[in-house]
């Protein structure tokens, strides 16, 4: 089943064309890496795929439904229900504890708070953060912060996990750990679309898409 389909995606920022016509399909269960140098347009592509930004031209289909970028509330709903985000910087909310950060996206759903907490605790345990659930963000290490961000991205059991340079601010040990988590998450059924400039990280993925100057220059199964 197609989770995400991008057709003829172009993106202009001012007079500069960042994406020049991208066609891309992500199927259920894939772990796709978008590989490209800085400025190649890979992050812009991820923002469009994550329904955070509207393309200048082209269409986006999520779960085979065309996305209408003019309906902001609907976009928010789709992001909350079907997508999860992990950014280069953890982007956790400093006022909240680790547990609260993880629970936050699920509070928008109609799920019972107890059920949300149970799911959050399962994820936290899975990511090896059980001992730190009540810690504030500033009391966590870089690796722990990023693992918390992954737990937050997974709390709503998303169809697609989008990761923008998820290990960009981590040391090699934590990078390895995060990539192993992604691999395990993917094996458990979550589709992943990851943007990176490090070739080394793509060895865990099932497909590599190389982007250069706003165009896909190569797609290779891994």
């Amino acid at each position: 089943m197609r989770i995400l389909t991008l057709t003829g995606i172009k993106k202009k920022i001012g007079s500069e064309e960042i994406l020049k016509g991208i066609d891309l399909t992500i199927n259920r269960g894939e772990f796709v890496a978008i590989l490209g140098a800085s400025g190649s347009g890979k992050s812009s592509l991820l923002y469009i795929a994550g329904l955070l930004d509207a393309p200048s031209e082209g269409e986006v289909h999520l779960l085979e439904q065309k996305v209408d970028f003019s309906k902001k509330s609907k976009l928010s709903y789709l992001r909350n229900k079907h997508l999860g985000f992990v950014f280069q910087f953890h982007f956790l909310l400093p006022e909240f504890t680790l547990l609260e950060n993880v629970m936050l996206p699920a509070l928008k759903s109609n799920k019972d708070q107890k059920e949300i907490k149970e799911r959050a605790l399962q994820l936290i345990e899975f990511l090896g953060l059980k001992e730190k659930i009540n810690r504030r963000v500033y009391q966590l290490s870089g690796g722990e912060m990023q693992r918390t961000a992954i737990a937050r991205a997974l709390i709503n059991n998303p169809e697609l996990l989008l990761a923008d340079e998820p290990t960009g601010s981590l040391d090699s040990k934590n990078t390895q750990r995060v990539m192993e988590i992604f691999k395990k998450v993917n094996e458990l059924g979550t589709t992943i679309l990851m943007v990176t400039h490090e070739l080394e990280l793509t060895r865990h993925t099932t497909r590599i898409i190389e982007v250069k100057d706003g165009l896909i220059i190569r797609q290779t199964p891994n």
Partner: protein
Amino acid sequence: MRHVLFVAFKLLFERKRQTIISIIGVSIGVCAYIVMSSLMFGFQKFFIQQVIDIEPHIKVKPKESTNQNPHKELILGYKSEDKDKIMGWQDLIENFSKHEEIKGAAPHLLARGILKQGIKEKPVSIVGIDPAREAQASVIERFLRYKNLRELESNRLGVIPGILVAKSLGVNKKGETLLLVLPDGQTLDTKVVDFFDSGITNLDEVRVYIHIKTLQGILNKHGQANEIVFKIKDVNRAERLARELQQRTTYEVESWQKAYKNFLSIFKIQNTITFMIVFAILVVSSFGIFNIIMMTVLEKKRDTAILMALGFTPRDIMLTFLLKGLFIGALGSMIGVILGYGMQEYLETIRLDVEGLIRSKGFVLDRSIAHYIYGIVFSFFFSLIASIYPAYRASSLNPVDIFRSQ
């Protein structure tokens, strides 16, 4: 909504110092509104209540224009004394009293004079009353020190001076004699049977009550009256009823609102000034709220972008920041209400001689719950207004712009 409350609650504790200052600003505004309103309305209500109790709700008097007719002496049968009397006042009372809204009526004979005590003298406004009828048309007895209105009946030389008239003449005991001098030079030795103390300076410093028959006798106006006063069931309908009764007589019918028109106008101006002062205080505190929420919005741009990425709608974001403003308004109101209540309690304990339009032994407060409710509503309104723009700014952020700038 739960996700909005969850985040809004955390944001409340951002910028604690500025938040506290904003809360203090709102509290002062609410407290000022409650105290000023209760003082102002207390004074006004006291004044109006005294006026309603002492003064006729409706009075009928000769038309002033009759006196100003330059050719009146040429009118057939006109007598100069007609200008200052109500012909057939007994019939007028009987006729008007049939109206279902009239509760009681009494004739007055009004005159000017001077009261003397030794070398002290005081110009006064003499009101000749029929004590039995007067009791039906006003509650004047309530304002008498010894409640001795009926003594005017048994002691036809008795007078009831206003408390400030008596004070200026150095009279403070019942039974003291005063010399009443009328404009035509006639004099009458009178005896003080009571003192009239309405609390309204304007009345207490000029008014003297005497039996109507005594005044009629001395003025040689036997059986005459130049003012008929009426007590009605609903004082708020006096103006409408006066207009209705005016259709039935050629004499002037005047409601208490018309008689005290100038005072009521002053009250309106006074109310406007008070509202403007409180408005200014609340506007200043609103700027405080605006400032703090705007600062929070600017500081929390990244967090707002994250919340949007996690599925918060622009409406959720707007509500989150609005709630902060409303929280400041709510907490400020609560503290303001407590402070306002405390101030009222304190002001009530203060004993001092207030002398002005009214006289009292302390502040006259109107402790109506309405002042609290209005104070709370105003503060919420201003807090909401102050929060709308920053909250809107936050809700219209583009998360991608924020992520790109990181």
